[in-house]
């Protein structure tokens, strides 16, 4: 067992990003897809904080602060959109929302 370095954190971040991507591509519930998106954003945050720590700079942490704020705004708007879709179509399922599919 060795002391964790930047690479360790980046591996965790990359794996988490892949998990989120899998969720976005494979799950069919709009809400779970949205949660997977949050997982991907969090993976990016982890990578930024790790870079910031191992480079002795705070710029990465400021970036993460901004990302968290934008993610919160995005969640609010996205969930309002999902509720609006549900009100109109009575479904929150990706396969039922294929009007634009070629």
């Amino acid at each position, binding site marked *: 067992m060795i002391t964790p370095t930047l690479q360790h954190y980046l591996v*965790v971040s990359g794996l988490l990003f892949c998990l*989120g991507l899998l969720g976005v591509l494979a799950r069919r*519930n709009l*809400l779970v897809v949205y*949660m997977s998106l949050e997982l991907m954003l969090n993976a990016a945050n982890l990578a930024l904080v790790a870079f910031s720590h191992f480079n002795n700079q705070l710029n990465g942490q400021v970036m993460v602060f901004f990302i*968290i704020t934008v993610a919160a*705004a995005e969640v*609010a708007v996205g969930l*309002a959109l999902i509720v*609006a879709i549900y009100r109109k179509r009575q479904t929150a399922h990706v396969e039922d929302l294929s009007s634009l599919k070629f």
Partner: protein
Amino acid sequence: MPTLPDLLFYALAGFTLLFGFLCVANPFSRNPVTSAMFLVLTIISMAGLFVLLQAFFLAAVQVLVYAGAVMVLFLFVIMLLDIKEEERRRLNKAALGIGGVAVLAIAGLLVRALVQATPLASAAGQRAEGSTKPLGRLLFTEYLLPFEILSVLLLVAMVGVILLSKKEMK
């Protein structure tokens, strides 16, 4: 001899990945509420990782904003919608296969980048410790303009949400 922070890193990283997996692909339950709960656990483990990286302020913000506000919003919307119908559906095998291939491709790219990267010249010396005060100073001097733009963004999001969730006017 591993020290406590090292052991904590491995434990927290393991928890983060385990809970993240249970969030996106829980083999026992397809209920969105379960996913949301595991996402909360993932975010809290990640806040622990932030503490290990000495980003105390961000760890607190992570717990307050994500595990608090955002997840409450998620649960609220899940309760608002009818989720009983969702559990009956089967997984789409083709989507799962294509998704798996895409994920493996991205993972391969990440591994290749990590292997080929030259290790960072270990930035010795003092770490940026107890970072709340310097972080605040940086936020209100160098990053003041983005900070103000962000507040406008929050206002826009707020107005947009109110407009979207309002009943249509005659």
